[in-house]
């Protein structure tokens, strides 16, 4: 089986491109180390072999690894962390529903519960003027204290889960969208079967492990320089073949 050096050059070229894409993925992970509810993304490389022709590697897909992040306490009663499976639903400006695990909410001027980007949380209930001390139970029951000092239930929050949460589309701003790969959204009460529970005064950290990402960065950089070295050498070999006939 004869092989062309140009084909070999192409293996290294494809390899370099894949690693540069992986560098983007890793940079994005490192940038989001402190983003609440953020999930690390992994590059999935796959071997390319076509009819016994070795074609190197291809970055087949990127995949969000949806393991639980650690939970930290906060001083805000509107910081709601999800322990377990599920996403909060928020309404995006164009009316579509986005999903997020970042449960750091606030009250806007119109008394809507909104996330950091100002997108309103989808929930069943309303907050009246003068209400304070808004808090959530582990099963999603929201209570508040009104102007007269009476604490009562004002609504409920539900969570949404997907068969393959790693396949949700990243819409930026820590918002995910339903996709063909994620499967159909299922809505349920927090704490019911397969849904996580909520806890107020808590924030879910990103599940990015800084040490692991840095290690990945190092191996990535070394792998990249190896492909560059292979590329240069194949190039030298082609040059040598061209210069076979001395002037």
């Amino acid at each position, binding site marked *: *089986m*004869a*092989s*062309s*050096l140009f*084909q*070999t050059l192409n*293996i*290294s070229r*494809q*390899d370099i491109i*894949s690693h540069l894409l*992986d560098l983007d993925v890793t940079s994005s992970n490192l940038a989001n180390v402190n983003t609440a509810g953020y999930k690390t993304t*992994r590059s*999935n*490389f*796959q*071997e*390319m*072999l076509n009819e016994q022709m*070795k*074609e*190197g*590697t291809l970055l*087949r*897909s990127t*995949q969000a*690894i949806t*393991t639980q992040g650690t939970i930290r306490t906060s001083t805000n009663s509107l910081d709601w962390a999800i322990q377990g499976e599920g996403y909060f639903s928020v309404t995006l400006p164009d009316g579509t529903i986005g999903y997020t695990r970042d449960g750091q909410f606030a009250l806007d001027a119109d008394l809507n519960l909104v996330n950091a980007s100002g997108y309103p949380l989808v929930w069943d209930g309303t907050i009246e003027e003068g209400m304070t001390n808004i808090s959530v139970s582990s099963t999603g029951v929201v209570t508040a204290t009104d102007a007269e000092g009476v604490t009562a239930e004002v609504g409920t929050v539900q969570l949404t*889960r997907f*068969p*393959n949460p*790693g*396949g949700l589309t990243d819409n930026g701003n820590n918002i995910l969208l339903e996709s*063909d*790969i*994620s*499967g*159909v959204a*299922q809505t349920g009460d927090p704490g019911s*079967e*397969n849904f996580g529970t909520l806890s107020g005064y808590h924030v879910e950290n990103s599940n990015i492990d800084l040490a692991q990402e840095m290690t990945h960065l190092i*191996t*990535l950089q*070394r*792998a990249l320089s*190896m*492909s560059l*070295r*292979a590329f240069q*050498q*194949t190039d*030298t*070999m082609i040059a*040598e*073949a061209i*210069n*076979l*006939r*001395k002037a």
Partner: protein
Amino acid sequence: MIKGLYSAVSAMVMNATRQQAISHNIANIQTPGFKQVLTTVQGFMQDQPVYTSGNLQSTIIEYVGNLGLGSQIGQEYVDYGQGAMQKTDNPLDLAFQGNGFFTVQTPDGNRYTRDGRFLRDAENNLVTVDGYQVLDDAGQPIQLPDGEISVAYDGAITVNGEAVATLGIGVFADPAAELQHTEGNLFTGPAASTGDEVPQVVQGVLEFSNANPSQLMTQLVEVGRSYEAAQKLVQNQDELLGKTIASLGRIG
């Protein structure tokens, strides 16, 4: 003279093929479950040069021995050695400690793989990153109910504590002889296991490429220099040939 030219060129062709295999191994250094491809080199045909004395009337022919006519690429084989294990904590990342292959269903038939990057697709099937369905011990696709997945050492999958399926695992006594490397990271082999080793599945771990970077770099240098040497030899032969044509038989 011409023989030497072709011998040298055969070494260049052979090294170009090796370069491709090395580049392929380098490219897949971060591919989980990847098994490096090893190349072998063997001598090309042998010739038996004869010696005759300068006297044209002489009919005595003496064989001087064997003359190699260069090298060629030999049998290519896959190194099935264990790769380094890396912890990912992702419940659907599986790896084998020791012998064993997962069974997956592709449009071209069942294949074996050591690449345990599995995921749950939109229809709750257990699939590989390429979207192929992972098969159970009865050769059927695995459907996962909602819930938390755990995989035991023997490949038994439980979701929320309830048994769902057992992974179809192929164990081969001699993978190098029984399996063929057909598509990317997939192997074709006998329908049933031939080995009696007990496979050990580990969850939350991936097995990485078994290619060794320092070995790869050494091979790269070796191939590069060997190619260069062969190229110099071709030029040498060419020079000698040129001299022969130009000066031999020139009178005065």
